[in-house]
């Protein structure tokens, strides 16, 4: 059976906060080059900023002629609302099992909490929020702003029970990455349900970074 393309549109919304009204320019691409035929890939890169941000790539290893999935997430730049559009195109071959590993395309500097702030209006500046203990470990968030507009928010460091994840993961991509990884555990599900992937620690570190930036 041939399946039609699956289109995934992701909206980043902060119901209790953050980000939706501020435009991240990070470009997050989840996704491999599919090895199965018949795959369409839709990409709409609109790097509105000047190349700030991080790129995270997820690379599924095909189990035989199993599923191939390509996802491209584009954060549109500019000063308006931040919108993420994710387009996913799966193909289904004859096989099943797909395992997913995550390969960071960009590795972060795991700088300790430190501030790089310039005071020139309109210039790009960034601050790293305090390291905050949260449910799984210690997190700190890096905020980049131009003028009074936040242009990027990333996780500066994330320590998870001794397993330091040295990749900079755009915080908005975490749920998508998690979902992709989880969904890949089973070929027979279309989605993954669970409690929200947001953390109070993230929020607290973010607030401390915002304070440093005077936002």
């Amino acid at each position, binding site marked *: 059976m041939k399946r039609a393309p699956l289109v995934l549109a992701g909206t980043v919304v902060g119901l209790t906060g953050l980000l*939706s009204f501020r435009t991240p320019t990070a470009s997050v691409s989840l996704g491999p080059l599919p090895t199965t035929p018949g795959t369409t890939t839709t990409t709409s890169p609109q790097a509105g900023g000047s190349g700030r941000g991080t790129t995270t790539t997820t690379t599924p290893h095909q189990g035989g002629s199993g599923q191939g999935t390509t996802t491209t997430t584009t954060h549109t730049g500019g000063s308006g609302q931040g919108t993420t*559009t994710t387009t996913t195109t799966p193909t289904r071959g004859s096989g099943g099992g797909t395992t997913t590993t995550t390969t960071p395309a960009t590795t972060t500097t795991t700088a300790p909490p430190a501030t790089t702030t310039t005071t020139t209006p309109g210039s790009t500046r960034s601050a790293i929020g305090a390291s905050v203990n949260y449910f799984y470990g210690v997190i700190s968030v890096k905020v980049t702003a131009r003028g009074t507009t936040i242009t990027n*928010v990333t996780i500066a460091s994330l320590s998870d029970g001794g397993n330091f994840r040295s990749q900079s993961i755009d915080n908005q991509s975490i749920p998508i990455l998690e979902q992709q990884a989880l969904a890949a555990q089973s070929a*027979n599900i279309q989605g993954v349900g669970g409690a929200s992937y947001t953390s109070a620690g993230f929020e607290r570190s973010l607030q401390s970074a915002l304070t440093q930036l005077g936002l």
Partner: protein
Amino acid sequence: MGTVITTSLFDDAGFSVADAEEVTAECDHWFQHVDATFSTWKPESPLSRLRRGEIRLDDVPGEIRTVLELCRSARTITGGWFDPWAVSDGVDPTGLVKGWSAQEALRFFIDGPARGVMINAAGDIATLGGPAAGETFHVGIVDPRDPHRLWGVVAVQDAIATSGLYERGHHLWNPRTGSTDVEFASASVSGPDLAIADAWATALMVGGQSAFERLERTPDYEGLAIGDDGRSVSTSGFVCSPVTS
């Protein structure tokens, strides 16, 4: 805090990607609008202004009154275990807004380009149709003890919401006692409406066994709760199958 909402379209008969992108763009605008209206983070949002007493209930957008009405219903239905008024700083309907907005967003896809639609609002899922003709959506439920694994798989006709401590730490409290103790590590509730399912999931977390007994007597909604020890309890109609690879 940011939330990621994804919309997935499915159709084994094929559909136009351009049409799909058009309708998902409408959907995007809807969520941005909801955010601008209901954010408790943004001081200028109508809800924030209402909470500060700057504007009266008569002056807020109709959507806020709709949601508060829904909160009232949910509080009644859950026997008070879900209570957005049990906060110190006025009403906080945030717990229900996410599910409500995803449920509402399905309207953009009725008679839309694809047979099946799944809107996943950070783990709370509203669906329309199925992945293919005659098929039902299947959703993996995260194992609260290890959020990188799945606990089981549930066939979902309409919606399923999950509440848990594993991602946000303790953000739940008992509206009757003020206690933050909960009996379960996570609770999932399926049913026809995601907003109500969401409220029930919260109710099970804080209300434990007595909320469960109430849910058992409630038609159309079914629940599953998983404990820290890995044991689970579910209502009689909740069917969860093992994860198959």
